[in-house]
């Protein structure tokens, strides 16, 4: 069982909502669409659901062309950012409604409603009405209704955005466990890189209606095809510094020059973008070949366990994510250290040309 998008485009009034998207989703898979607001996540899901018709391309389900087939004929659930419930029905009846429509026996309905409600922790609320619930409880009711029937395609459009962060963390973990045992295709749209990492599965990066990259979450995270993919899939965004490589030297500017080491020996002389994740930058050198970069502190944000330090030099700025509390005055001159084996390198067309070497784990 699979759903394939073949060169799918949707153009409305000359504006590309989706341009030439080709993707395959397998049964039993969890797929995250990651992109900024207006990247095309909702448009793509609406095409998959059959709510909108593509301008070009085909939608293939189990080998059958389902392009243009109405959503009613296919077994699909969709969960929106704004929770939608029937205000005149109890929570129980809201969740039961798709099963009643399918004329399921009441004993089976009762079993499923209670099971789903328990999973989403709304069992004590079954007799209440939606308007008597908090926003989080209403969204969980809407999610329960979507999950209670065995849909073959379940689409989540930023379902947790309106919930508080702790509840999100819990629901995320539960969703992941839940879909491990299901044979449906789950598609989940989010703007948050950390959410994509936490959910796992397959990640598809979308930007301005186009697929930037798609693959198993860790492959996409570890090998971003270009600077855009790298920026989209890291929070805070990956730092990018323009620099150059000569036969003997790597330099960011006149203050930052380093002898070229084995690690970057595969680079031809020329101009490059060097990418480093905020969490890989340190205040002390860990290895002899770490790149020392003199900078000034712009701002320290302390989150309790971590410090996000914004630093700048004449030619670039960076964000560092440091464990522990580090307080510096604005303008303080310091050095930060970039481990050379954690550097991403992109060419001037912003395409990845060098992936950091795999660091060996402290294996057990």
């Amino acid at each position, binding site marked *: 069982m699979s759903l394939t998008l073949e060169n799918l485009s949707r153009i409305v009034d000359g504006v590309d909502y989706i341009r030439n998207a080709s993707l395959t989703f397998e049964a039993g898979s969890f797929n995250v669409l990651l992109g*900024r*607001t207006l990247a095309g996540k909702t448009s793509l899901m609406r095409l998959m659901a059959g709510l909108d018709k593509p301008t070009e391309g085909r939608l293939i389900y189990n080998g059958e062309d389902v392009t243009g087939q109405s959503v009613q004929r296919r077994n699909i659930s969709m969960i929106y950012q704004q929770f939608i419930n029937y205000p005149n029905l109890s929570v129980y009846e809201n969740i039961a409604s798709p099963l009643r429509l399918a004329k399921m026996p009441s004993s089976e309905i009762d079993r499923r409603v209670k099971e789903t409600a328990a999973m989403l922790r709304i069992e004590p609320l079954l007799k209440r009405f939606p308007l008597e619930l*908090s*926003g*989080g409880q209403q969204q969980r009711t809407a999610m329960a209704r979507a999950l209670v029937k065995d849909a073959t395609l379940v689409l989540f459009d930023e379902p947790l*955005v309106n*919930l*508080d*962060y*702790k*509840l999100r*963390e819990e629901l995320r973990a539960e969703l992941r466990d839940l879909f491990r045992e299901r044979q449906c295709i789950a598609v989940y749209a989010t*703007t*948050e*890189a*950390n959410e994509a*990492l*936490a959910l*796992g599965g397959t990640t598809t990066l979308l930007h301005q209606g186009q697929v930037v990259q798609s693959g198993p979450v*860790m492959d996409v*995270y570890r090998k971003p095809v270009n600077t855009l993919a790298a*920026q989209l899939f*890291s*929070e*805070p*965004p990956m730092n990018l510094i323009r620099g150059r490589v000569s036969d003997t030297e790597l330099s960011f500017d006149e203050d930052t020059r380093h002898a070229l080491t084995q690690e970057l020996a595969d680079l031809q002389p020329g101009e490059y973008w060097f990418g480093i*994740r905020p*969490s890989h930058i340190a205040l002390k050198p860990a290895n002899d070949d770490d790149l020392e970069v003199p900078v000034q502190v*712009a*701002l320290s*944000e*302390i*989150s*309790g*366990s971590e410090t*996000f330090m*914004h630093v700048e030099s004449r030619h670039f700025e960076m*964000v560092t*994510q440091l*464990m522990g*509390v580090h307080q510096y005055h*604005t303008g303080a001159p310091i050095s930060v250290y970039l481990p050379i084996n954690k550097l991403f390198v992109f060419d001037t067309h912003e395409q990845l040309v060098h992936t950091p070497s795999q*660091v*060996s*784990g*402290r*294996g*057990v």
Partner: protein
Amino acid sequence: MAEIHLKSLAHSYSKSPSGPEDYAIRQLDHVWHKGGAYALLGPSGCGKSTMLNIISGLVQPSEGEVLFDGIRVNALSPRDRNIAQVFQFPVIYDSMTVYQNLAFPLKNNKVPAARIKARVQDIAEVLEIEDKLHKKAKNLTADEKQKVSMGRGLVREDVSAILFDEPLTVIDPQLKWKLRRKLKQIHEQFDITMVYVTHDQLEASTFADKIAVMYDGQIVQFGTPTELFEQPNHTFVGYFIGSPGMNLIDVERCEAGVRFGSVEVVLEPWQIEHLNRLSSTNLKIGIRPEFIEIGLEPKVNSYEVEVLDMEDLGTYKIIDLGLGDETLKARVDEDFDARIGSRVHLTLPPQWTMLYVDEFLIQEQS
């Protein structure tokens, strides 16, 4: 700019509250000092919006007083309190230009035209929207609109405080960083009392010097981000701050300290001494995933545990470890690698092992 004192404050939406469960805010005393950058953090339904509305004057508290610099303002309207508010969704006039939007609150207050011009220019510069001043607001992006909305709060020089109600919810994560940084710089520059309501701990802790954590109508802790992280004085703070939150385990007394099942946890002498003076059996120990130490060799007071699960979050990993019948979460760095089912040695460093009695932290007397 003002000091905001909430004195014996309580609020119930019910006309005849019969018990504590009828109160959105249970009786509390709290002071927001002049010029501070504060966050009010808690889950939905904890009472934080009620508290914000009481400060701004949108809600009249059913009990207690709201004092601005010692003067009772309970009966004053939001306008007379000189409070600026920035909401989740930008509140701006789409048909006006950015300049007109920013000038609007000043015109209303009959500020002289020359002063308006200078002030709008200043604020636009700080927010980096000078080049947008003559654009119609409806043509702005979401984050630009929210900047204008913030600008409308900042532009008045006579405000007592600025209240932010989840102002970054509609902003993309990538831009949140920039706006938060901007807000922090503005606070440093203008030295104005700011209260920032959010359910996002990261937003709260990066913006605020001190955070009030609300739970069930009460402020359970008011402290710096580091204090909330290192010394949560209520189990709720331990759970709510941190991702994942603190490991909390129900325990009972034993010779060495406390135990759960057959697992004994050695406590510090002062913790045991304190415990002996109390009779409650609602006891928990708490330790943050960041403070659990994991090694390949046994150490003094270490436990051999099984690796049950491992979650790769890119910059770090969370591993689940089975200790007795409990599962503990530990945070390890991204290079850590262990097979599921393998065994490692776990240590609970005494200085990071917290003891909670009736959900409150037992603290060392200094």
